[in-house]
Protein backbone atom coordinates (compact mmCIF):
# COMPACT_ATOMS: atom_id res chain seq x y z
CA UNK A 1 0.00 0.00 0.00
CA UNK A 2 2.69 2.43 0.99
CA UNK A 3 4.53 2.16 -2.28
CA UNK A 4 3.79 4.85 -4.78
CA UNK A 5 6.52 4.22 -7.27
CA UNK A 6 4.34 3.02 -10.12
CA UNK A 7 1.42 4.68 -11.82
CA UNK A 8 -0.69 1.55 -11.31
CA UNK A 9 -0.75 1.96 -7.58
CA UNK A 10 -1.26 5.68 -7.50
CA UNK A 11 -4.86 6.73 -7.19
CA UNK A 12 -6.43 9.67 -8.90
CA UNK A 13 -6.21 11.99 -5.94
CA UNK A 14 -2.62 11.10 -5.22
CA UNK A 15 -1.50 12.07 -8.70
CA UNK A 16 -3.57 15.21 -8.75
CA UNK A 17 -2.06 16.13 -5.42
CA UNK A 18 1.45 15.33 -6.52
CA UNK A 19 1.27 17.93 -9.29
CA UNK A 20 -0.82 20.38 -7.34
CA UNK A 21 -0.82 23.90 -8.72
CA UNK A 22 -2.58 27.17 -8.10
CA UNK A 23 -6.14 27.18 -9.30
CA UNK A 24 -7.36 30.14 -11.39
CA UNK A 25 -9.32 31.28 -8.36
CA UNK A 26 -6.13 31.47 -6.31
CA UNK A 27 -4.39 33.33 -9.10
CA UNK A 28 -7.21 35.85 -9.28
CA UNK A 29 -6.93 36.33 -5.53
CA UNK A 30 -3.19 36.91 -5.81
CA UNK A 31 -3.64 39.45 -8.58
CA UNK A 32 -6.37 41.16 -6.58
CA UNK A 33 -4.31 41.39 -3.43
CA UNK A 34 -1.37 42.81 -5.39
CA UNK A 35 -3.57 45.71 -6.48
CA UNK A 36 -3.11 48.31 -3.75
CA UNK A 37 -6.22 50.34 -4.59
CA UNK A 38 -8.40 47.24 -4.57
CA UNK A 39 -7.13 46.33 -1.13
CA UNK A 40 -7.88 49.84 0.13
CA UNK A 41 -11.37 49.45 -1.30
CA UNK A 42 -12.01 46.13 0.34
CA UNK A 43 -10.76 47.38 3.73
CA UNK A 44 -13.01 50.45 3.68
CA UNK A 45 -15.94 48.33 2.61
CA UNK A 46 -15.21 45.75 5.29
CA UNK A 47 -15.32 48.48 7.95
CA UNK A 48 -18.64 49.76 6.64
CA UNK A 49 -20.01 46.23 6.50
CA UNK A 50 -18.84 45.63 10.06
CA UNK A 51 -20.65 48.77 11.24
CA UNK A 52 -23.80 47.70 9.44
CA UNK A 53 -23.81 44.22 10.94
CA UNK A 54 -22.88 45.19 14.48
CA UNK A 55 -24.67 48.55 14.56
CA UNK A 56 -26.77 47.50 17.54
CA UNK A 57 -23.70 46.63 19.57
CA UNK A 58 -21.99 49.89 18.73
CA UNK A 59 -24.90 52.23 19.49
CA UNK A 60 -28.32 51.50 20.86
CA UNK A 61 -31.07 52.14 18.33
CA UNK A 62 -33.87 53.29 20.61
CA UNK A 63 -31.95 55.64 22.88
CA UNK A 64 -29.40 57.13 20.52
CA UNK A 65 -30.71 56.87 16.98
CA UNK A 66 -34.37 57.75 17.01
CA UNK A 67 -35.15 59.18 20.44
CA UNK A 68 -35.85 62.90 20.52
CA UNK A 69 -33.70 64.75 22.99
CA UNK A 70 -34.34 68.45 22.57
CA UNK A 71 -32.09 69.31 25.49
CA UNK A 72 -29.03 68.16 23.65
CA UNK A 73 -29.95 69.42 20.16
CA UNK A 74 -27.36 70.78 17.76
CA UNK A 75 -24.27 70.07 19.77
CA UNK A 76 -20.78 69.96 18.33
CA UNK A 77 -18.54 66.89 18.53
CA UNK A 78 -17.80 65.82 22.11
CA UNK A 79 -16.82 62.73 24.07
CA UNK A 80 -20.46 61.79 24.56
CA UNK A 81 -21.43 62.53 20.97
CA UNK A 82 -18.42 61.91 18.73
CA UNK A 83 -19.98 63.68 15.80
CA UNK A 84 -22.34 65.89 17.74
CA UNK A 85 -26.13 65.85 17.61
CA UNK A 86 -28.71 66.93 15.07
CA UNK A 87 -31.60 69.36 15.42
CA UNK A 88 -33.66 66.78 17.31
CA UNK A 89 -30.79 65.95 19.67
CA UNK A 90 -30.08 62.57 18.10
CA UNK A 91 -26.50 61.31 18.05
CA UNK A 92 -25.07 61.84 14.55
CA UNK A 93 -22.43 59.13 14.90
CA UNK A 94 -25.03 56.56 15.92
CA UNK A 95 -27.26 57.60 13.03
CA UNK A 96 -24.42 57.29 10.52
CA UNK A 97 -23.59 53.81 11.82
CA UNK A 98 -27.20 52.69 11.67
CA UNK A 99 -27.56 54.41 8.31
CA UNK A 100 -24.95 52.00 6.98
CA UNK A 101 -27.22 49.15 7.95
CA UNK A 102 -30.18 50.73 6.11
CA UNK A 103 -28.19 51.51 2.99
CA UNK A 104 -26.39 48.21 2.76
CA UNK A 105 -29.32 45.93 3.24
CA UNK A 106 -31.69 47.85 0.99
CA UNK A 107 -28.94 48.19 -1.57
CA UNK A 108 -28.17 44.51 -1.30
CA UNK A 109 -31.75 43.36 -1.70
CA UNK A 110 -32.35 45.79 -4.58
CA UNK A 111 -29.19 44.63 -6.36
CA UNK A 112 -30.13 41.00 -5.81
CA UNK A 113 -33.59 41.70 -7.20
CA UNK A 114 -32.29 43.37 -10.32
CA UNK A 115 -29.64 40.68 -10.80
CA UNK A 116 -32.31 38.04 -10.54
CA UNK A 117 -34.76 39.64 -12.97
CA UNK A 118 -32.12 41.11 -15.28
CA UNK A 119 -30.03 37.97 -15.18
CA UNK A 120 -32.93 35.75 -16.14
CA UNK A 121 -34.10 38.09 -18.89
CA UNK A 122 -30.58 38.53 -20.23
CA UNK A 123 -29.86 34.83 -20.10
CA UNK A 124 -33.11 34.00 -21.89
CA UNK A 125 -32.38 36.60 -24.55
CA UNK A 126 -28.81 35.36 -24.95
CA UNK A 127 -29.53 31.62 -24.99
CA UNK A 128 -32.63 31.52 -27.10
CA UNK A 129 -32.05 34.49 -29.39
CA UNK A 130 -34.48 35.13 -32.23
CA UNK A 131 -37.77 36.90 -31.51
CA UNK A 132 -37.62 36.50 -27.74
CA UNK A 133 -34.23 38.20 -27.68
CA UNK A 134 -35.58 40.92 -29.94
CA UNK A 135 -38.61 41.47 -27.70
CA UNK A 136 -36.70 41.55 -24.41
CA UNK A 137 -33.99 43.82 -25.71
CA UNK A 138 -36.45 46.28 -27.28
CA UNK A 139 -38.23 46.61 -23.93
CA UNK A 140 -34.85 47.12 -22.24
CA UNK A 141 -33.97 49.80 -24.81
CA UNK A 142 -37.16 51.65 -24.00
CA UNK A 143 -36.41 51.43 -20.30
CA UNK A 144 -32.91 52.73 -20.91
CA UNK A 145 -34.44 55.81 -22.49
CA UNK A 146 -35.57 56.74 -19.01
CA UNK A 147 -32.67 57.40 -16.64
CA UNK A 148 -32.57 55.03 -13.67
CA UNK A 149 -33.18 57.90 -11.27
CA UNK A 150 -36.35 59.03 -13.06
CA UNK A 151 -37.71 55.50 -13.40
CA UNK A 152 -37.13 54.89 -9.71
CA UNK A 153 -38.89 58.18 -8.91
CA UNK A 154 -41.85 57.22 -11.08
CA UNK A 155 -42.22 53.91 -9.26
CA UNK A 156 -41.98 55.53 -5.85
CA UNK A 157 -44.44 58.20 -6.98
CA UNK A 158 -46.97 55.58 -7.95
CA UNK A 159 -46.55 53.18 -5.06
CA UNK A 160 -45.70 55.55 -2.25
CA UNK A 161 -42.49 56.09 -0.35
CA UNK A 162 -41.60 53.11 1.84
CA UNK A 163 -38.84 50.55 2.10
CA UNK A 164 -40.45 47.84 -0.03
CA UNK A 165 -41.35 50.24 -2.80
CA UNK A 166 -37.91 51.73 -2.74
CA UNK A 167 -36.33 48.29 -3.17
CA UNK A 168 -38.71 47.65 -6.06
CA UNK A 169 -37.98 51.05 -7.60
CA UNK A 170 -34.21 50.74 -7.38
CA UNK A 171 -34.20 47.08 -8.31
CA UNK A 172 -36.43 47.40 -11.35
CA UNK A 173 -34.70 50.51 -12.65
CA UNK A 174 -31.40 48.59 -12.81
CA UNK A 175 -32.80 45.56 -14.56
CA UNK A 176 -31.83 46.73 -18.07
CA UNK A 177 -28.19 47.12 -17.09
CA UNK A 178 -27.98 43.55 -15.82
CA UNK A 179 -30.00 42.17 -18.70
CA UNK A 180 -27.60 43.74 -21.16
CA UNK A 181 -24.41 42.63 -19.48
CA UNK A 182 -25.65 39.08 -18.90
CA UNK A 183 -26.91 38.80 -22.46
CA UNK A 184 -23.68 40.02 -23.98
CA UNK A 185 -21.51 37.76 -21.87
CA UNK A 186 -23.74 34.79 -22.62
CA UNK A 187 -23.50 35.62 -26.32
CA UNK A 188 -19.72 35.93 -26.16
CA UNK A 189 -19.26 32.65 -24.35
CA UNK A 190 -21.87 30.89 -26.47
CA UNK A 191 -19.87 31.82 -29.55
CA UNK A 192 -16.67 30.33 -28.13
CA UNK A 193 -15.41 27.19 -29.75
CA UNK A 194 -15.18 25.25 -26.52
CA UNK A 195 -18.95 25.34 -26.23
CA UNK A 196 -19.18 23.70 -29.63
CA UNK A 197 -16.45 21.32 -28.51
CA UNK A 198 -18.63 20.28 -25.58
CA UNK A 199 -21.52 19.66 -27.94
CA UNK A 200 -19.24 17.58 -30.15
CA UNK A 201 -18.47 15.22 -27.28
CA UNK A 202 -22.18 14.77 -26.67
CA UNK A 203 -22.84 17.13 -23.76
CA UNK A 204 -26.46 18.09 -23.17
CA UNK A 205 -27.61 21.70 -23.35
CA UNK A 206 -28.08 21.82 -19.59
CA UNK A 207 -24.54 20.61 -18.94
CA UNK A 208 -23.13 23.06 -21.44
CA UNK A 209 -24.97 25.99 -19.89
CA UNK A 210 -24.04 25.06 -16.33
CA UNK A 211 -20.47 23.92 -16.82
CA UNK A 212 -19.19 25.97 -19.68
CA UNK A 213 -21.33 29.03 -20.24
CA UNK A 214 -22.37 30.26 -16.79
CA UNK A 215 -19.02 29.69 -15.12
CA UNK A 216 -17.24 31.64 -17.81
CA UNK A 217 -19.76 34.49 -17.70
CA UNK A 218 -19.28 34.99 -13.99
CA UNK A 219 -16.40 37.46 -14.17
CA UNK A 220 -18.06 40.44 -15.83
CA UNK A 221 -21.26 39.84 -13.88
CA UNK A 222 -19.49 39.95 -10.52
CA UNK A 223 -17.83 43.22 -11.51
CA UNK A 224 -21.19 44.64 -12.52
CA UNK A 225 -22.74 43.54 -9.24
CA UNK A 226 -20.29 45.64 -7.22
CA UNK A 227 -20.83 48.67 -9.45
CA UNK A 228 -24.62 48.37 -9.32
CA UNK A 229 -24.51 47.86 -5.58
CA UNK A 230 -22.71 51.21 -5.40
CA UNK A 231 -25.27 52.88 -7.63
CA UNK A 232 -28.09 51.40 -5.55
CA UNK A 233 -26.62 52.91 -2.37
CA UNK A 234 -26.42 56.27 -4.11
CA UNK A 235 -30.01 55.93 -5.30
CA UNK A 236 -31.27 55.14 -1.80
CA UNK A 237 -29.74 58.29 -0.38
CA UNK A 238 -30.81 60.34 -3.39
CA UNK A 239 -34.44 59.30 -3.06
CA UNK A 240 -34.37 59.84 0.69
CA UNK A 241 -32.75 63.23 0.19
CA UNK A 242 -35.67 64.20 -2.03
CA UNK A 243 -38.03 62.94 0.68
CA UNK A 244 -39.16 60.01 -1.47
CA UNK A 245 -37.36 57.27 0.39
CA UNK A 246 -36.67 56.45 4.01
CA UNK A 247 -38.46 58.98 6.20
CA UNK A 248 -37.01 60.43 9.40
CA UNK A 249 -36.62 59.58 12.19
CA UNK A 250 -35.41 56.30 10.67
CA UNK A 251 -31.68 56.77 10.10
CA UNK A 252 -30.60 57.10 6.49
CA UNK A 253 -27.69 59.10 5.11
CA UNK A 254 -29.79 60.87 2.48
CA UNK A 255 -32.51 62.00 4.83
CA UNK A 256 -29.89 63.06 7.37
CA UNK A 257 -28.41 65.36 4.72
CA UNK A 258 -31.82 66.66 3.85
CA UNK A 259 -32.60 67.41 7.50
CA UNK A 260 -29.20 68.96 8.09
CA UNK A 261 -29.59 71.44 5.26
CA UNK A 262 -31.39 74.08 7.26
CA UNK A 263 -28.70 74.12 9.94
CA UNK A 264 -25.71 73.56 7.74
CA UNK A 265 -24.61 77.17 7.81
CA UNK A 266 -23.71 76.93 11.49
CA UNK A 267 -23.23 73.19 11.88
CA UNK A 268 -21.37 71.99 8.80
CA UNK A 269 -20.44 68.71 10.52
CA UNK A 270 -24.06 67.67 10.12
CA UNK A 271 -23.67 67.48 6.36
CA UNK A 272 -20.08 66.33 6.43
CA UNK A 273 -20.60 63.03 8.28
CA UNK A 274 -23.41 61.40 6.30
CA UNK A 275 -21.94 62.70 3.03
CA UNK A 276 -18.59 61.12 3.80
CA UNK A 277 -20.38 57.88 4.62
CA UNK A 278 -22.11 57.81 1.22
CA UNK A 279 -18.92 58.79 -0.52
CA UNK A 280 -16.83 56.13 1.18
CA UNK A 281 -19.30 53.32 0.50
CA UNK A 282 -19.50 54.16 -3.20
CA UNK A 283 -15.79 54.83 -3.44
CA UNK A 284 -14.85 51.53 -1.83
CA UNK A 285 -17.27 49.55 -3.98
CA UNK A 286 -15.95 51.20 -7.13
CA UNK A 287 -12.37 50.41 -6.14
CA UNK A 288 -13.44 46.87 -5.43
CA UNK A 289 -15.16 46.59 -8.80
CA UNK A 290 -12.16 47.99 -10.67
CA UNK A 291 -9.85 45.66 -8.79
CA UNK A 292 -12.02 42.67 -9.61
CA UNK A 293 -12.19 43.70 -13.23
CA UNK A 294 -8.41 43.86 -13.47
CA UNK A 295 -7.97 40.61 -11.57
CA UNK A 296 -10.48 38.79 -13.75
CA UNK A 297 -9.34 40.29 -17.04
CA UNK A 298 -8.24 37.40 -19.25
CA UNK A 299 -6.02 39.75 -21.24
CA UNK A 300 -3.73 40.12 -18.25
CA UNK A 301 -3.56 36.35 -17.93
CA UNK A 302 -1.55 36.15 -21.17
Amino acid sequence: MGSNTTTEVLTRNAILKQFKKKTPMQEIMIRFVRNRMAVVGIIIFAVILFCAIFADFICDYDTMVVKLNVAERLQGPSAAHWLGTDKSGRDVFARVIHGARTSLWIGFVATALSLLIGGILGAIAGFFGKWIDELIMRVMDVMLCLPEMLLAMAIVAAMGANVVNMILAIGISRVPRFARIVRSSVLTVRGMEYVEAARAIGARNGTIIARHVLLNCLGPIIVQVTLIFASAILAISSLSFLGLGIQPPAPEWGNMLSEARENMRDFPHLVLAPGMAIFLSIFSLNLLGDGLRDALDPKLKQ
Partner: protein
Amino acid sequence: MIKYILKRLLALIPVILGVIFIIQFILYISPNDPAVVILGVDYTPEGAAQVRESLGLNDPFIVQFARYVLDLLRGDFGNSYVTGEPVAVQLAARFPNTLILVVVSMTLCTILSLPIGIQSAVKPNSWFSNITAALGMVGIALPTFWLGLMLILLFAVHLEWLPATGSVSLTGMILPAITLSASFMAGTMRTTRSSMLDCLNQDYIRTAKAKGVSHHDVIDKHALKNALLPIITVVGVNVGTQMGGSVLTETVFSYPGLGIMLTNGIKQTDTPTILGCLVVMAICIGICNLLVDIIFAFVDPRIKSQYSKRG
Protein backbone atom coordinates in the same frame (compact mmCIF):
# COMPACT_ATOMS: atom_id res chain seq x y z
CA MET B 1 -27.76 59.85 -45.40
CA ILE B 2 -31.21 61.39 -45.27
CA LYS B 3 -32.60 57.89 -45.44
CA TYR B 4 -30.53 56.94 -42.43
CA ILE B 5 -31.74 59.94 -40.44
CA LEU B 6 -35.34 59.23 -41.38
CA LYS B 7 -34.92 55.63 -40.38
CA ARG B 8 -33.54 56.62 -36.99
CA LEU B 9 -36.32 59.17 -36.58
CA LEU B 10 -38.96 56.55 -37.28
CA ALA B 11 -37.30 54.18 -34.83
CA LEU B 12 -37.57 56.89 -32.18
CA ILE B 13 -41.38 56.93 -32.29
CA PRO B 14 -42.01 53.45 -30.84
CA VAL B 15 -39.37 54.10 -28.19
CA ILE B 16 -41.07 57.27 -27.02
CA LEU B 17 -44.47 55.60 -27.13
CA GLY B 18 -42.95 52.76 -25.12
CA VAL B 19 -41.64 55.15 -22.50
CA ILE B 20 -44.99 56.87 -22.19
CA PHE B 21 -46.65 53.48 -21.94
CA ILE B 22 -44.35 52.35 -19.14
CA ILE B 23 -44.67 55.54 -17.11
CA GLN B 24 -48.41 55.69 -17.54
CA PHE B 25 -48.76 52.03 -16.67
CA ILE B 26 -46.76 52.47 -13.48
CA LEU B 27 -48.93 55.41 -12.48
CA TYR B 28 -52.08 53.54 -13.54
CA ILE B 29 -51.50 50.66 -11.16
CA SER B 30 -50.84 53.14 -8.34
CA PRO B 31 -53.19 52.77 -5.38
CA ASN B 32 -53.47 56.56 -5.12
CA ASP B 33 -56.91 57.97 -5.86
CA PRO B 34 -56.76 61.12 -8.00
CA ALA B 35 -60.18 62.09 -6.75
CA VAL B 36 -58.79 62.46 -3.24
CA VAL B 37 -56.11 64.77 -4.56
CA ILE B 38 -58.47 66.87 -6.62
CA LEU B 39 -61.29 67.18 -4.15
CA GLY B 40 -59.13 67.44 -1.05
CA VAL B 41 -61.36 68.39 1.89
CA ASP B 42 -64.50 68.42 -0.29
CA TYR B 43 -64.21 64.66 -0.80
CA THR B 44 -67.50 62.75 -1.04
CA PRO B 45 -67.93 59.34 -2.63
CA GLU B 46 -70.40 60.74 -5.17
CA GLY B 47 -68.17 63.66 -6.06
CA ALA B 48 -65.23 61.31 -6.42
CA ALA B 49 -67.15 59.06 -8.79
CA GLN B 50 -68.07 62.10 -10.85
CA VAL B 51 -64.47 63.28 -10.99
CA ARG B 52 -63.25 59.86 -12.05
CA GLU B 53 -65.90 59.72 -14.75
CA SER B 54 -65.05 63.16 -16.11
CA LEU B 55 -61.32 62.36 -16.22
CA GLY B 56 -62.04 59.08 -17.98
CA LEU B 57 -60.32 57.11 -15.25
CA ASN B 58 -62.89 54.34 -15.45
CA ASP B 59 -61.89 53.53 -19.03
CA PRO B 60 -59.64 50.58 -19.76
CA PHE B 61 -55.94 51.40 -19.52
CA ILE B 62 -55.35 51.14 -23.23
CA VAL B 63 -58.03 53.75 -23.93
CA GLN B 64 -56.51 56.10 -21.39
CA PHE B 65 -53.12 55.57 -22.98
CA ALA B 66 -54.43 56.29 -26.48
CA ARG B 67 -56.25 59.38 -25.27
CA TYR B 68 -53.11 60.68 -23.57
CA VAL B 69 -51.01 60.18 -26.70
CA LEU B 70 -53.62 61.86 -28.89
CA ASP B 71 -53.86 64.81 -26.51
CA LEU B 72 -50.09 64.98 -26.45
CA LEU B 73 -50.02 65.38 -30.21
CA ARG B 74 -52.07 68.55 -29.74
CA GLY B 75 -49.67 69.72 -27.05
CA ASP B 76 -52.14 68.98 -24.29
CA PHE B 77 -50.51 67.45 -21.20
CA GLY B 78 -53.72 67.53 -19.16
CA ASN B 79 -54.46 69.69 -16.13
CA SER B 80 -52.78 69.55 -12.77
CA TYR B 81 -54.85 67.80 -10.12
CA VAL B 82 -53.68 70.28 -7.53
CA THR B 83 -53.94 73.65 -9.24
CA GLY B 84 -56.20 72.72 -12.11
CA GLU B 85 -53.95 74.63 -14.48
CA PRO B 86 -52.74 73.05 -17.73
CA VAL B 87 -49.50 71.16 -17.12
CA ALA B 88 -48.19 72.36 -20.47
CA VAL B 89 -48.01 75.93 -19.18
CA GLN B 90 -45.87 74.92 -16.23
CA LEU B 91 -43.70 72.74 -18.44
CA ALA B 92 -43.13 75.56 -20.88
CA ALA B 93 -41.96 77.76 -18.03
CA ARG B 94 -39.70 75.22 -16.38
CA PHE B 95 -38.28 73.09 -19.19
CA PRO B 96 -36.02 75.76 -20.76
CA ASN B 97 -34.33 76.30 -17.39
CA THR B 98 -33.46 72.66 -17.04
CA LEU B 99 -32.34 72.48 -20.65
CA ILE B 100 -29.98 75.43 -20.17
CA LEU B 101 -28.56 73.89 -17.02
CA VAL B 102 -27.95 70.55 -18.71
CA VAL B 103 -26.43 72.14 -21.80
CA VAL B 104 -24.08 74.32 -19.76
CA SER B 105 -23.01 71.44 -17.60
CA MET B 106 -22.59 69.13 -20.60
CA THR B 107 -20.37 71.67 -22.29
CA LEU B 108 -18.34 72.22 -19.16
CA CYS B 109 -17.96 68.49 -18.69
CA THR B 110 -16.89 67.81 -22.27
CA ILE B 111 -14.51 70.73 -22.60
CA LEU B 112 -12.64 69.74 -19.46
CA SER B 113 -12.71 65.98 -19.54
CA LEU B 114 -11.78 65.30 -23.17
CA PRO B 115 -8.35 66.95 -23.16
CA ILE B 116 -7.55 65.53 -19.73
CA GLY B 117 -8.55 62.04 -20.80
CA ILE B 118 -6.54 62.25 -24.01
CA GLN B 119 -3.47 63.61 -22.27
CA SER B 120 -3.53 60.91 -19.62
CA ALA B 121 -3.86 58.21 -22.30
CA VAL B 122 -0.92 59.57 -24.26
CA LYS B 123 1.28 59.40 -21.20
CA PRO B 124 -0.29 56.54 -19.29
CA ASN B 125 2.27 56.26 -16.52
CA SER B 126 2.94 59.94 -15.82
CA TRP B 127 2.08 61.77 -12.62
CA PHE B 128 -0.56 63.70 -14.53
CA SER B 129 -2.27 60.52 -15.56
CA ASN B 130 -2.13 59.08 -12.06
CA ILE B 131 -3.50 62.21 -10.41
CA THR B 132 -6.34 62.62 -12.87
CA ALA B 133 -7.17 58.93 -12.54
CA ALA B 134 -7.36 59.31 -8.76
CA LEU B 135 -9.48 62.45 -9.08
CA GLY B 136 -11.72 60.52 -11.44
CA MET B 137 -12.23 57.77 -8.90
CA VAL B 138 -13.16 60.34 -6.28
CA GLY B 139 -15.39 62.28 -8.68
CA ILE B 140 -17.43 59.24 -9.62
CA ALA B 141 -18.07 58.38 -6.00
CA LEU B 142 -19.15 61.90 -4.96
CA PRO B 143 -22.92 62.08 -4.46
CA THR B 144 -24.20 65.00 -6.53
CA PHE B 145 -26.39 66.49 -3.85
CA TRP B 146 -23.70 66.30 -1.21
CA LEU B 147 -21.18 67.97 -3.50
CA GLY B 148 -23.79 70.69 -4.09
CA LEU B 149 -24.19 71.25 -0.37
CA MET B 150 -20.44 71.40 0.14
CA LEU B 151 -20.04 73.91 -2.68
CA ILE B 152 -22.75 76.07 -1.14
CA LEU B 153 -20.97 75.89 2.21
CA LEU B 154 -17.68 76.94 0.67
CA PHE B 155 -18.57 79.45 -2.02
CA ALA B 156 -21.86 80.87 -0.78
CA VAL B 157 -21.64 80.65 3.00
CA HIS B 158 -17.95 81.07 3.76
CA LEU B 159 -16.46 82.93 0.84
CA GLU B 160 -19.74 84.58 -0.15
CA TRP B 161 -18.65 84.69 -3.77
CA LEU B 162 -21.71 83.13 -5.31
CA PRO B 163 -25.40 82.87 -4.43
CA ALA B 164 -26.55 79.72 -2.67
CA THR B 165 -29.70 79.64 -4.76
CA GLY B 166 -29.48 78.73 -8.38
CA SER B 167 -31.09 80.77 -11.12
CA VAL B 168 -30.90 81.33 -14.84
CA SER B 169 -28.10 83.88 -14.68
CA LEU B 170 -24.34 83.85 -14.99
CA THR B 171 -23.63 83.67 -11.27
CA GLY B 172 -26.66 81.61 -10.39
CA MET B 173 -25.66 78.98 -12.91
CA ILE B 174 -22.08 78.37 -11.88
CA LEU B 175 -22.56 76.22 -8.79
CA PRO B 176 -25.41 74.08 -10.15
CA ALA B 177 -23.53 73.47 -13.40
CA ILE B 178 -20.33 72.43 -11.60
CA THR B 179 -22.29 70.17 -9.28
CA LEU B 180 -24.17 68.51 -12.11
CA SER B 181 -21.15 68.00 -14.32
CA ALA B 182 -18.72 66.75 -11.65
CA SER B 183 -19.60 63.08 -11.60
CA PHE B 184 -20.06 62.94 -15.37
CA MET B 185 -16.75 64.62 -15.88
CA ALA B 186 -15.04 61.74 -14.12
CA GLY B 187 -16.92 59.17 -16.20
CA THR B 188 -16.26 60.93 -19.50
CA MET B 189 -12.61 61.32 -18.61
CA ARG B 190 -12.23 57.65 -17.85
CA THR B 191 -13.96 56.63 -21.07
CA THR B 192 -11.84 59.01 -23.10
CA ARG B 193 -8.72 57.67 -21.48
CA SER B 194 -9.53 54.02 -21.96
CA SER B 195 -10.79 54.36 -25.50
CA MET B 196 -7.74 56.45 -26.45
CA LEU B 197 -5.45 53.87 -24.86
CA ASP B 198 -7.26 51.18 -26.77
CA CYS B 199 -6.85 53.00 -30.07
CA LEU B 200 -3.20 53.77 -29.43
CA ASN B 201 -2.53 50.03 -29.19
CA GLN B 202 -4.10 49.26 -32.55
CA ASP B 203 -2.14 48.08 -35.56
CA TYR B 204 -3.07 51.09 -37.66
CA ILE B 205 -1.28 53.36 -35.20
CA ARG B 206 1.88 51.35 -35.85
CA THR B 207 1.25 51.72 -39.58
CA ALA B 208 0.91 55.48 -39.15
CA LYS B 209 4.13 55.68 -37.15
CA ALA B 210 5.92 53.59 -39.77
CA LYS B 211 4.79 56.11 -42.38
CA GLY B 212 6.62 58.84 -40.51
CA VAL B 213 3.50 60.54 -39.17
CA SER B 214 4.54 62.84 -36.33
CA HIS B 215 3.67 61.97 -32.75
CA HIS B 216 1.24 64.86 -32.66
CA ASP B 217 -0.60 63.79 -35.81
CA VAL B 218 -0.71 60.16 -34.76
CA ILE B 219 -2.75 61.23 -31.77
CA ASP B 220 -4.85 63.94 -33.40
CA LYS B 221 -5.55 62.43 -36.77
CA HIS B 222 -5.37 58.69 -36.28
CA ALA B 223 -6.15 57.80 -32.70
CA LEU B 224 -8.62 60.51 -31.69
CA LYS B 225 -10.91 60.05 -34.64
CA ASN B 226 -11.29 56.39 -33.82
CA ALA B 227 -11.51 56.94 -30.09
CA LEU B 228 -14.32 59.43 -30.64
CA LEU B 229 -16.95 56.77 -31.30
CA PRO B 230 -17.19 55.39 -27.76
CA ILE B 231 -16.75 58.88 -26.34
CA ILE B 232 -19.73 60.19 -28.28
CA THR B 233 -21.80 57.30 -27.02
CA VAL B 234 -20.89 58.07 -23.43
CA VAL B 235 -21.57 61.79 -23.85
CA GLY B 236 -24.95 60.88 -25.33
CA VAL B 237 -25.82 58.60 -22.44
CA ASN B 238 -24.65 61.32 -20.06
CA VAL B 239 -27.32 63.69 -21.33
CA GLY B 240 -29.95 61.27 -20.17
CA THR B 241 -28.32 60.63 -16.83
CA GLN B 242 -27.82 64.36 -16.33
CA MET B 243 -31.53 64.86 -16.87
CA GLY B 244 -32.03 62.44 -14.00
CA GLY B 245 -29.27 64.07 -11.99
CA SER B 246 -30.75 67.51 -12.54
CA VAL B 247 -33.61 66.59 -10.19
CA LEU B 248 -31.18 66.43 -7.27
CA THR B 249 -29.13 69.42 -8.30
CA GLU B 250 -32.21 71.56 -8.74
CA THR B 251 -33.49 70.54 -5.33
CA VAL B 252 -30.18 71.41 -3.65
CA PHE B 253 -30.01 74.84 -5.28
CA SER B 254 -33.78 75.45 -5.46
CA TYR B 255 -33.23 75.96 -9.17
CA PRO B 256 -36.55 76.55 -10.95
CA GLY B 257 -36.53 73.63 -13.36
CA LEU B 258 -38.37 70.45 -14.21
CA GLY B 259 -36.72 68.55 -11.37
CA ILE B 260 -38.36 70.50 -8.60
CA MET B 261 -41.64 70.41 -10.46
CA LEU B 262 -41.37 66.63 -10.66
CA THR B 263 -40.45 66.23 -6.99
CA ASN B 264 -43.32 68.43 -5.91
CA GLY B 265 -45.66 66.58 -8.24
CA ILE B 266 -44.68 63.30 -6.65
CA LYS B 267 -45.12 64.63 -3.14
CA GLN B 268 -48.60 65.91 -4.02
CA THR B 269 -49.42 62.75 -6.06
CA ASP B 270 -50.25 65.05 -8.96
CA THR B 271 -50.24 62.44 -11.73
CA PRO B 272 -50.54 64.71 -14.83
CA THR B 273 -47.59 66.79 -13.60
CA ILE B 274 -45.44 63.71 -12.94
CA LEU B 275 -46.37 62.24 -16.29
CA GLY B 276 -45.73 65.51 -18.10
CA CYS B 277 -42.27 66.00 -16.59
CA LEU B 278 -41.17 62.45 -17.28
CA VAL B 279 -42.52 62.47 -20.83
CA VAL B 280 -40.74 65.71 -21.68
CA MET B 281 -37.48 64.39 -20.26
CA ALA B 282 -37.84 61.08 -22.10
CA ILE B 283 -38.49 62.83 -25.42
CA CYS B 284 -35.49 65.01 -24.79
CA ILE B 285 -33.32 61.96 -24.17
CA GLY B 286 -34.73 60.22 -27.22
CA ILE B 287 -33.78 63.20 -29.38
CA CYS B 288 -30.30 63.17 -27.87
CA ASN B 289 -29.87 59.52 -28.77
CA LEU B 290 -30.97 60.38 -32.27
CA LEU B 291 -28.35 63.14 -32.47
CA VAL B 292 -25.69 60.70 -31.29
CA ASP B 293 -26.70 58.25 -34.00
CA ILE B 294 -26.46 60.97 -36.62
CA ILE B 295 -23.06 62.17 -35.43
CA PHE B 296 -21.96 58.56 -35.42
CA ALA B 297 -22.94 58.21 -39.05
CA PHE B 298 -20.78 61.20 -39.92
CA VAL B 299 -17.76 59.98 -38.02
CA ASP B 300 -17.95 56.30 -38.84
CA PRO B 301 -17.60 55.57 -42.55
CA ARG B 302 -18.91 52.06 -42.01
CA ILE B 303 -22.39 53.46 -41.37
CA LYS B 304 -22.07 56.23 -43.93
CA SER B 305 -21.18 53.95 -46.82
CA GLN B 306 -23.84 51.46 -45.88
CA TYR B 307 -26.45 54.07 -46.59
CA SER B 308 -24.87 56.17 -49.30
CA LYS B 309 -24.46 53.13 -51.53
CA ARG B 310 -27.97 51.89 -51.34
CA GLY B 311 -29.73 55.12 -50.41
